[in-house]
């Protein structure tokens, strides 16, 4: 059984926002919603570093734990999906998520939130038909045997997506070539290749 994960190699990310655009395109997401974002630390300085972030499909997902409607579920591939029919737009998943992944479309009267939207690892979501699935959640590339479009389109292959083991292997290889063990995450003690998945319990 695969455990799907994203990994962004910050030493390769050139902040081109190609992943952001690819995602928008693949999933036809609503106006105002951007499932993936690129965060730049120390922008404009010599040590500037960028990283592309979206839902990380956590092992012990905080969003799942706090949702009042219990609308999240994990696929056999370890992908965290949610049912928009059940979502009430309470925002709790956003309060809990480490990565700011959940987003809410147009604010209704009195600022009420719409149904939550987030990265699906290009795995769609629960729906009666393919059309409905696309309409609500965007592409289901996983069903077609393809990986998320953001990672496939990444020009520098900074953004990796796939089974955690494969992603870890690629990253480990890079790190070996770079010659220092925390090759992408300089001095960050939490970032080792074996620790790609955010494990909330460990608070990494």
């Amino acid at each position, binding site marked *: 059984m695969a455990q799907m994960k994203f990994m962004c190699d910050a030493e390769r990310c050139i902040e081109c926002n190609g992943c952001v655009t690819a995602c928008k395109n693949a999933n036809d997401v609503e106006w105002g919603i951007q499932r993936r974002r690129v965060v730049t630390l120390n922008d404009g300085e010599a040590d500037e570093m960028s990283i592309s972030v979206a839902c990380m499909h956590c092992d012990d997902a905080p969003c799942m734990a706090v949702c009042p*409607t219990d609308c999240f579920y994990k696929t056999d591939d370890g992908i965290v999906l949610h049912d928009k029919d059940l979502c009430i737009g309470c925002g709790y998943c956003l309060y809990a998520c480490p990565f700011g992944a959940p987003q809410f479309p147009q604010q209704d009267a009195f600022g009420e939130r719409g149904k939550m939207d987030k990265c699906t690892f290009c795995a769609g979501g629960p729906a009666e038909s393919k059309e409905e699935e696309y309409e609500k959640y965007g592409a289901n590339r996983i069903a077609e045997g393809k990986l998320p479009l953001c990672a496939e389109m990444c020009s520098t292959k900074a953004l990796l997506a796939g089974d955690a083991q494969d992603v870890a292997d690629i990253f480990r290889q890079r790190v070996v070539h770079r010659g220092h063990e925390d090759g992408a995450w300089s001095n960050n003690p939490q970032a080792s290749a074996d620790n790609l998945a955010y494990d909330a319990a460990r608070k990494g």
Partner: protein
Amino acid sequence: MNQLTAQAPGGVPHLRYWQGVWRWLLLAFALVLSLGITQVAHAQADPDREMSTAAPGIDADQWRQVRSGETGPNYRDSRYESNYNLINSSGETWRQWRNRWVSPFGLIVIGGMIGIITLFYLIIGRKHLEEPRSGRKLFRWPLFMRALHWSVASLFIVLALTGLNLLFGKFVFRGLFGDAFWGWMVSSSKVLHNYLGPIFGVLLIVLLVSLIKDNMPKKHDLEWFKKGGGLVGKGHVDAGFANGGEKAWYWLLATVGLLVVASGFVLDFPNFGQGRDTMQWANIVHAVGALGLTAVSIGHIYIGTLGTEGSLEGMTTGYVDETWAKEHHNLWYEEVKDQAVSEQELADRKASKDAGESPAPRSS
């Protein structure tokens, strides 16, 4: 190193040196190769050196800053109007607080309250009037106050039930009724809760303002508490219009109740740019306060209905029996006893009032 080899041919201008050139090239090639290999080996042996050629990277201090949630002036997010930091560390803390403490202990406190009251009712039972009813009535609650009380009370109950559904419903009703019904149930809970909440808030404030004069703490209230409202020892304890317990409930609503309302507003209107951290706090304050109030309200409801004979009629009809007033609010009784009216008188008054209010014939 590569620049060196690239320059090598350019450094040899004459044709007759071709042989020498080739030799030079080969040598240079060998040199580059060996250097390359040693460099890899070297790099593995000396991470610091590789580090110096790699992007400088983010140092531990900066990671600490990221983890702390601070963003700093040179932080940039490609998402439109995003005010998120990179890692929302407090999210996990909030989750633990809510799921591990607030949720189970809320259940324990509310369940415990129900248990204690049930036991109390079964063992000690209802507090009956000690003397027979005199049949003479005292006016206690004007229509406005009764309407206000029942509006606040019904809104409170609806808010409590819908709020509880948001916190605990998924453990019970999803499995019981299936997704379709549960989806309807929880979304209507949220809509009811979010729209009735502000109305409750406004009415609660009106109620608190109207009642503040009667609920100012007095010395005899201390005595009331020492005697457990009359449960401890013999005889009656002094009480004015409101007794010590009622005043405590009033001040609980005036403090915790307003806190619940205030935090509810923060959660209800996410469009004022309040961040996730604010929302997390608001949620904890709201849930703790609301669950506490819900537990205490069960006591209030019990005392007002099943628990004490003669209390409920005050809030429904507006009038209480003299005996009830004497036994529960003796100081108030002393003040108003000369205004007592007989049931007959009351019925007459009501009849004439109804007649007076019957629509007068109009000509137009």
